């Protein structure tokens, strides 16, 4: 190819042209090669993410196998967790996780829905909206460990006083209740911001039809806006739940870290995440560590499933 382009040495502009054509073609080939290398690099980056997730799942499973094989289903139902005696019943942690997460959700829903309606319907713009929006974003930005520290220093003494007033057995202040309170504050932003987006998406002309029929503002919200966003709000609640389930630090610091099955809401307890955080570095036996990893696997599966369902609902909603 190159020989056919080699012109005789004639001192004329033709020489320069053919030489630069040669250079350009060589450069083009190089660039074409670089293009495909680059495209492959991009694909590798994408592949890396998939491998990452698969690797995480694989590691969790393989590290849980000793515990799964040894303990079987007793792991889930057993309500005694005594590593010293090699007894691993995780039910107290499942209960702790469910209690704190659902209680936190129940507490936060009225506030999240109120924020969503406030920002989505009453004041989408303006001074009020900016203040509230920033406040909600701030709530999401404060690190978990700071929530925990504040909870320990301020909330726990208040709860302890409350418990004493109610005549609770051992007014510790730490416990399921305190953990739920802190958690409820932390998950407000998730349902609120999603709910707000969904509410803003209700088409104006449907609201107009309702106003035209003589509805009050609240009636429009109740009969037109909210029914239209039911699935969106549900997805937001799911995502908040997912967040609550995985929250570790703040919960660890105020839940009391007790492996005994909690008798009531004021009792100390543990969640799956907090027991891992507390006991991981102390797990000296293989089965002990493997049991903790099994908890991690359970946590992984539950949060992933909840998040995927939530996202699918949102996708379907935004594409309708």
């Amino acid at each position, binding site marked *: 190819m190159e020989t056919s382009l080699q012109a005789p040495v004639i001192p004329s502009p033709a020489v320069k042209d053919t030489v630069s054509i040669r250079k350009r073609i060589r450069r083009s080939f190089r660039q074409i090669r670089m293009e495909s290398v680059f495209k492959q690099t991009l694909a590798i980056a*994408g592949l890396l993410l998939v491998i990452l997730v698969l690797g995480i799942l694989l590691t969790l499973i393989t590290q849980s196998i000793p515990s799964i094989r040894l303990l079987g289903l007793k792991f889930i139902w057993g309500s005694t967790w005594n590593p010293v005696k090699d007894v691993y019943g995780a039910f107290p942690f499942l209960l702790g996780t469910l209690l704190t997460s659902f209680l936190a959700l129940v507490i936060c829903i009225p506030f999240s829905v109120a924020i969503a309606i406030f920002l989505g319907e009453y004041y989408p713009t303006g001074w009020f909206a900016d203040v509230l929006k920033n406040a909600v974003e701030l709530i999401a930005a404060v690190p978990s460990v*700071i929530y925990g520290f504040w909870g320990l*220093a301020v909330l726990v003494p208040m709860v302890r006083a409350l418990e004493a007033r109610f005549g609770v057995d051992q007014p510790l202040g730490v416990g399921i209740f305190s953990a739920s309170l802190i958690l409820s504050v932390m998950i407000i932003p998730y349902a609120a911001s999603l709910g707000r987006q969904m509410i803003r998406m209700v088409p104006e002309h449907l609201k107009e039809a309702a106003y035209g029929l003589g509805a009050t503002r609240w009636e429009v919200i109740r009969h037109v806006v909210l029914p239209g966003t039911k699935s969106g709000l549900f997805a937001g609640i799911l995502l908040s739940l997912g967040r609550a389930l995985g929250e570790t630090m703040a919960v660890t610091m105020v839940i009391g870290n007790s492996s005994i099955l909690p008798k009531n809401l004021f009792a100390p307890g543990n969640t799956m995440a907090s027991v891992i955080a507390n006991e991981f570095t102390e797990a000296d036996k293989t089965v002990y560590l493997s049991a903790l990893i099994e908890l991690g696997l359970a946590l992984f599966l539950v949060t992933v499933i909840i*998040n995927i369902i939530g996202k699918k609902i949102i996708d379907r909603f935004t594409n309708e």
Partner: protein
Amino acid sequence: MRTDNIQYRIGKSKGFKILTFVLAFACMIPLAAILFFIIKAGITRINFHFLVNIPRPVGEKGGGIANALLGSVIIIALASFIAIPIGILAGVYLSENKKGRLAYWCRLSVDILQGIPSIVIGIIAYFWLVKPLGGFSAFSGSVALAIMMLPVIVRSTEETLKMLPPSLKEAAFALGMPFHRVIFKVIIPVGISGILSGVMLSIARITGETAPLLFTAFGNPYLSADVTAPMQSLPLLIFNYATSPYNDWHDLAWGASLILLIWVLFLNVFTKLISARWKVQL
């Protein structure tokens, strides 16, 4: 007949508006309480010595959080170094490939990663790096944090690039530019604010993370810049010292909390400013 309950309905509508208002702004009460308390408790502890000294043994007065400050900076920098290139490349890949099997699984993986609890990521980093390498290290902590940064960076890069007009890319190609040049010299520079805000957001997110570092970076009472050794970080220090029984250490934790809070807030505000500018440009 039908008009006698109108006053009631009007009252109900007004009542709900007030209820919504009250509930919405009620969430600001705990926020204000936390901010106020942290500022009050922390502001007295912070001075120059606090920032440049390492913690003293229990019982000795003074001491600071220099090791945690340096440690946080190093760990975050290293995590960013790992996560940013991979994240941006993956984001570019997804924006260029709207359909396709790999793109589908990649997107699913990003969604999954975003939902994984941070403590589980800590477990993973432990088994992938701490156990094989025989000890805790800042490096393993950075990897854990990098894994957490990835979904945010990939998402925001993909969203940013998707919003660019296709005519931009077409114009570049029509000029004969090769693909990698189009991406690096045209697409990314135009979308840089959006990508940057995604990066800043991910950094803001991991700055306050503690759980992934619990059994990776682990913490270190001494000033160290060795990434192959355990290292202290600000949230770790707060956690360890806040849950300790010593008042001196509680003091340290308060000061550290204030510093961490300011740092995180600053990052968030900075991110907002960048993304606001980007929206205006568009």
